[in-house]
């Protein structure tokens, strides 16, 4: 430990944003979610419970707002006071947006949440002291805190249920923050496999749990650095750029006919999840 070392580390610290002098080199994981395909069926959220060892908190704690769903499906209604919602509901899967300039990262006193070189917003459970500042500063409120010690709570993982736990994913104890990781355990495995073979991860080689379950393929996930990946193509086609708050296409007169957008882009957090607007038929 030395001051020079600290300064060196500090120089590199948080320099993983999509800034011009240090762009993402090999990987930038990103997602796009087609809201027109999403039916709100909840398969993704249950898959997330299965993959990521999420505790089932039960009715009382759910009522207290202490549920732990890393991914939640929000259901919105039209607000024009028609008798019936005759254009259906609107569903939105919401999870950590893995912002490139994440508001949560800068405020953590212990440096427990960081940006990785792959553009993930990582959460280091062991380093977390539970100040919850990250959640306080998250515009999407997608960070979930372990209000209780779920592993030792009755009927969370009783008896044989522990055998279902994914050994690749830590079971979190009380007092730490957690959130969607983009299934980092899958990403790491894919990267390791690719590295062994001396190549990069191919598009489609790794899927997040939600994406893999989604019955309508509404979720795409991949490497934004790789221009041929589906996600990169989608972002490019929709003319959504990562490091912008407000896209060029939206500044055109009359708007664009593209439907890609990011939530709260104006907050300059540069989310890594692009949503595609839900479409309704105008002829009926």
């Amino acid at each position, binding site marked *: *430990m030395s001051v020079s*070392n*600290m300064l060196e*580390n*500090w120089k590199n610290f*948080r320099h993983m944003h999509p800034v011009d002098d240090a762009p993402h080199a090999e990987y930038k994981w990103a997602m796009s979610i087609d809201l027109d395909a999403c039916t709100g069926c909840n398969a993704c959220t249950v898959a997330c419970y299965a993959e990521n060892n999420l505790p089932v908190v039960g009715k009382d*704690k759910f009522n*207290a*707002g*202490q*549920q732990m769903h890393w991914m*939640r499906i*929000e259901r919105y209604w039209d607000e024009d006071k028609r008798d019936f919602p005759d254009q259906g509901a609107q569903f939105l899967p*919401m999870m950590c947006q893995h912002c490139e300039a994440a*508001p949560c990262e*800068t*405020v*953590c*006193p*212990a*440096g*427990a949440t960081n940006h990785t070189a792959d553009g993930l917003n990582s959460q280091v459970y062991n*380093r*977390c*002291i*539970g*100040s*919850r*500042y990250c*959640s*306080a*500063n998250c*515009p*999407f*409120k997608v*960070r*979930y*805190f*372990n*209000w*209780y*010690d779920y592993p030792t709570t009755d009927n969370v993982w009783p008896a044989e249920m522990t055998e279902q736990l994914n050994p690749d994913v830590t079971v979190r104890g*009380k*007092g*730490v*923050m957690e959130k969607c990781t983009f299934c980092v355990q899958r990403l790491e495995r894919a990267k390791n496999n690719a590295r062994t073979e001396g190549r990069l991860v191919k598009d489609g080689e790794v899927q997040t749990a939600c994406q893999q379950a989604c019955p309508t393929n509404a979720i795409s996930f991949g490497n934004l650095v790789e221009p041929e990946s589906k996600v990169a193509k989608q972002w490019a086609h929709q003319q959504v750029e990562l490091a912008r708050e407000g896209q060029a296409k939206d500044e055109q007169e009359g708007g664009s006919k593209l439907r890609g957008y990011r939530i*709260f882009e104006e*907050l300059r*957090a540069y989310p890594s999840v692009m949503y595609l607007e839900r479409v309704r038929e105008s002829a009926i």
Partner: protein
Amino acid sequence: MEKDIREDIAWAKINGDVLKSLETPRPLYWVILLVALAMFGVGLGCEIYQYNIGMGVANLNNPHVWGLYIATFIFWIGMSHSGTLLSAILHLMHADWRKPIYRFAEAMTTFSLMTAGLFVMVHLGRLWQFYYAVPYPNERWTWPNFQSPLLWDAMAIFTYLSSSVIFLYVGMIPDLAIARDNIHSGWRKKLYTLLALGWEGTDRQWRNFRVTYLTVACFLIPLAVSVHSIVASDFAMSQQPGWHVTSFPPYFVAGALYSGCAAIITLFIILRYVFKFEEYMTMPILRKVVRLTFAIAMVWTYLNLIEYASVWYSHDEAAKAVLIQKATGPYAPFWWMMNFCGSVVPLLMMVKRFQTNIPMMFAVSLLLNLGMWLERWMIVSPTFSHGYYPWTWDHFQWPSLVQWGMVFGSFGWFTLLFMVFCKVFPSVSMYEVKEMVYHRSLALKNNELAEKGAH
């Protein structure tokens, strides 16, 4: 002009009166101490429960990740500013009237910081790992995140606390020597002997003492301002509606001085009564403190209105929604009460005859502090209940009894520390009161001489 203090008090009487407060306590003292202990016990019990079960028992949730702990933390930090104001700022400004009351105000600073520190701890989900937020040497070279206002907080508070303790102690050395010389037996004798650092009152000692005291005072003032500015940064540096306000640092500092002054009035009245310090804590001094408080109240009101106005006229719809929510939502009663207590109640202090009306000022000072506590709560919680993301709006999350218990307990803890302090250390600065009396008599003499000369 009224006299801040009588000029004909004998120095021995000063010593006697003040040292008497260190003697065998009256039953009332024990009652207060026991009540404080019981209150602290409640808070401690709540913390033990929360530590074992998890933060969930506080009835915090997503989005209400912060609650009364943070609000009360700011409250106590704010409280601490009064001591610095009275002892350091007014010292530099040569406001003599501060002398009989600054000692307890300074003790208040130290103890409220210690109380505030507890709230940082009980707020943490993993209290046992709190040191991760502190830059300590470790072989893994892991550092805390220097970008985080919470880290600045930790460092600022720690620095402020240690400086305050030093300031309090340094200022007490001559008095400790008096206590040492007047008390002849028991553990007190040993304690005072040790702490007086061989003070003999030589010229050289006094000179060094003055310089040291002045230096620490100068050091402390920017620290005090920065500490609450940094607490304000916890909010202002975030991106949340209702927090992301540039005027927060001065607003917080004003609020801090405000609540601190109000607390001084409260304690002034209590000490005056409990220790029979009528000679020293005189009505004219009370009047001055009240006027000062009133002035700060108006500054605070002004800054408060600035905050409302800047939110209202900004195009930040989310922040505006939070403000409207504060005024009309489930927090409305508290929000209005805060405005009433913080801006309307102090108007009573304008009335000259109320300024020395002890029961009224006692009540007013309590209301002001209630208002200031509510202010902190109204900064923290409404933003969570009505943040950026409508899906997670939660207007009905009410702090559990565990949270209230710890808030309650913190007052016990503070009182406990304060009461113990008053019995162990002179809560009125004897040497400075003597200076004051001396200055006063000197001035009188000068006047008389001048009058004579005129004849």
